[in-house]
């Protein structure tokens, strides 16, 4: 298969995934037993302590249905949605926070999510793989068992328990970090950057700890298997040093599945880290999605899920395209 045909096939698949994803995204909220108009009226009625008259509610319902674009048959709504999303990349206003644009909400929340998750995912991946490689390559040594134990200890702890434990330890018993962050607004200064980093450290530590264990165990298993490969034995007989064998022979060959996992994790970070955001009161895309799902805010759901689909599908495409560079065997097929 030529390079062009390979790229074209992968790109076609990418577009098909996006199309199917967008269609499912349109349908899913409409299958939920939630009506955004009712949700909004419920909020208003609650704030008014039940004093809205039925006539006012009836009028409000009719107006909101027009305003939210929920009038008309579903096909008309679908084509209008595709046109807005694909051509204009416009998700309209949020129903819950009307008239704030969905794109504004996403743009506001995304830097927080990316800043936290991108950093913590990369650190967890790098640290986990380094520790896993050493534990796997020297798996017959006692020290390797200790390293593996760290992975076994951390991996099965449910994230909620881990997060609350870290919170209790580092923000309550030893109040080194704030229990609940406050992020400054307005023009960015170095002092504010420092404050943001300080306030983000606690959620970042829990995310690194949570991701760290899996990477250790996974890389260790791959490294043990690769160490037994004949080419590693050959390298040893050839006189290659431990360092050379570990980094150039074992690490490079064990790396491929880990790169796939990393790329997929990077795609997934656009979903946000819901539990982290709830526990640490951290602003991000996960909280926005949760609020939208519980309140039937279709437009915000479309925006956030579409972004997520785009990110995961693009991550998959990038993996497909760089695989031949990482693994010569794929190039020759």
């Amino acid at each position, binding site marked *: 298969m030529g390079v062009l045909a390979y790229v074209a096939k992968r790109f076609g698949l990418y577009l098909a995934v996006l199309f199917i994803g967008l269609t499912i995204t349109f349908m899913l909220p409409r299958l939920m*037993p939630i009506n955004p108009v*009712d949700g909004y009226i419920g909020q208003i009625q609650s704030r008014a302590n*039940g004093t809205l008259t039925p006539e006012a509610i009836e009028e409000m319902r009719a107006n909101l249905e027009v305003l939210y674009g929920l009038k008309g048959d579903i096909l008309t709504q679908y084509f209008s949605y595709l046109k807005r999303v694909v051509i204009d990349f416009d998700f309209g206003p949020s129903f819950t926070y009307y008239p*704030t644009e969905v794109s504004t909400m996403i743009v506001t929340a995304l830097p927080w999510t990316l800043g936290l998750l991108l950093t913590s995912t990369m650190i967890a991946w790098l640290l986990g793989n380094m520790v896993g490689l050493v534990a796997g390559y020297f798996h017959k040594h006692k020290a390797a068992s200790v390293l593996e134990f760290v992975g076994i200890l951390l991996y099965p702890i449910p994230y909620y328990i881990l997060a609350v434990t870290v919170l209790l330890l580092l923000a309550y018993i030893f109040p080194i970090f704030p*229990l609940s962050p406050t992020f400054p607004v307005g023009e960015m200064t170095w002092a504010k950057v420092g404050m943001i980093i300080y306030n983000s450290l606690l959620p970042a530590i829990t995310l690194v700890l949570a991701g760290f264990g899996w990477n250790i165990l996974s890389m260790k298993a791959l490294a043990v298997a690769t160490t037994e490969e004949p080419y590693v034995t050959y390298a040893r007989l050839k006189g290659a040093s431990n360092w050379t064998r570990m980094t150039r022979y074992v690490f490079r060959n064990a790396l491929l599945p880990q790169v796939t996992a990393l790329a997929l994790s990077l795609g997934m970070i656009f979903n946000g880290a819901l539990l982290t955001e709830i526990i640490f009161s951290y602003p991000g895309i996960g909280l926005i999605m949760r609020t939208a799902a519980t309140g039937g805010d279709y437009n915000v759901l479309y925006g956030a899920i579409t972004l997520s689909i785009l990110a995961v599908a693009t991550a998959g495409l990038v993996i497909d395209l760089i695989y031949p560079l990482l693994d010569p065997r794929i190039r020759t097929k």
Partner: protein
Amino acid sequence: MVTFQNTNAVTLGPYKIKEFDPNGAWQLWELREDWERSGWGNLGQPKPKFVLYKDFGAEETRALAFVQNQYDVDTFMSPDSIQAAKGRNPNIESFSPTFPYHDMNDACSYGVYINLQKAPYDKPEVRWALALALNMQQVGISSMSGQFKAGALPLADTPITGPLYYEPLQSWLEELTLADGYKPYNTNFGAELSDALAAQGVDASQLPTGDAVEKGFGMGWWKHDPAQAAKLLESVGMKKGADGFFALEDGSPWVIEFVIPGDWNKVIQRIGFSIADSWRQAGFNINTRQVDNGEWTTVQNTNARNELMINWGQSCTYNVNWQNSWRQFDAKYVLPVDSTDALNGNIMRVTDQRIFDIVADSAQLPTDDPQFLANGQDIAKYLTEDMQMINLMNIPTTIPTNKTYWTNFPKQDNFYAAPYTWWSSFKKTVVSIEPTGQQ
């Protein structure tokens, strides 16, 4: 197309928005220099230069931050968390130093709303059976640690509604008799609850005595009598099947779908689970379904989706003007039982023509006419005698405060304002609280 983005808020009060988090986690209000010329400058100078509203996250985090004196007033913290926080920080106080500890003066009340149009709930015997099978003492103790004020009428029993509805109708409640001659009302509910709490080890000094029992725990509630509930069901042909649960008249299984809030309202969620447990013990087969707030509203508004649910926003009666809430009882807001259209009113699904007539007649009366109040009391009687809604308790508004930096918050014995920080009454609070000088 609307272009105003709702920010910054336009206010008439002495505070203006200084900064806010675009993600919605906090907002900081600053006292205006010309506060005296603001809409409520006549109340005096507000003491705090800044007021910060902030979301401290999950309740666990909030409770820890509260113990660390990071903020002054909490909203809707669960009784367990308040108790734990009070145990770790003596500056943390609940609304009242004694049971039931919390502010019970909200105009709305918690109740079990029944789809009166749907069989078998269209029979008053079935609805009464549900009320008498509900062990309110057990529900209140297990879900609220006994910190609640019960009310049998379909509205909250507050210092305002008490003299208007509860006190005049107390003797009627005591004499209320079901078709078989059974008297369902228990005037000793509060005293029995107090005894039960004392038996569980609650310090006697924390429990109300004398007249304070009725003020604290309410004037009474329905008897817990599963045998009478069974008798009522049997009178309409509903008997227990081989599985130990009551069945429908034709012997087919009867599974009650009971909708309660999910984690978004933990207090009502716990009450809901306790009620379901109480009914299950009495032989009712319950499917308790937790839903998110979006779905909860849809269930509330849609006949086809609604059977039984906990609700609180449809019986909010502040004062003599019951029309605020009950004007929704109108035949034009009754939809067919299987309708999937949303209801705009009459969320209780009342179909009682007597009530519709009273509401229509009362629209012609001034609200200060004695007949207007009498009409409201009649509606309360009709709703009660046919058990058209099982009212449970006043909404326990749990607002603990921390007096490390500020004192003189509204309390039961210093009730100068409703203690809500999200209501207009907060303007009275900000001019009344005093700094302690602690930095």
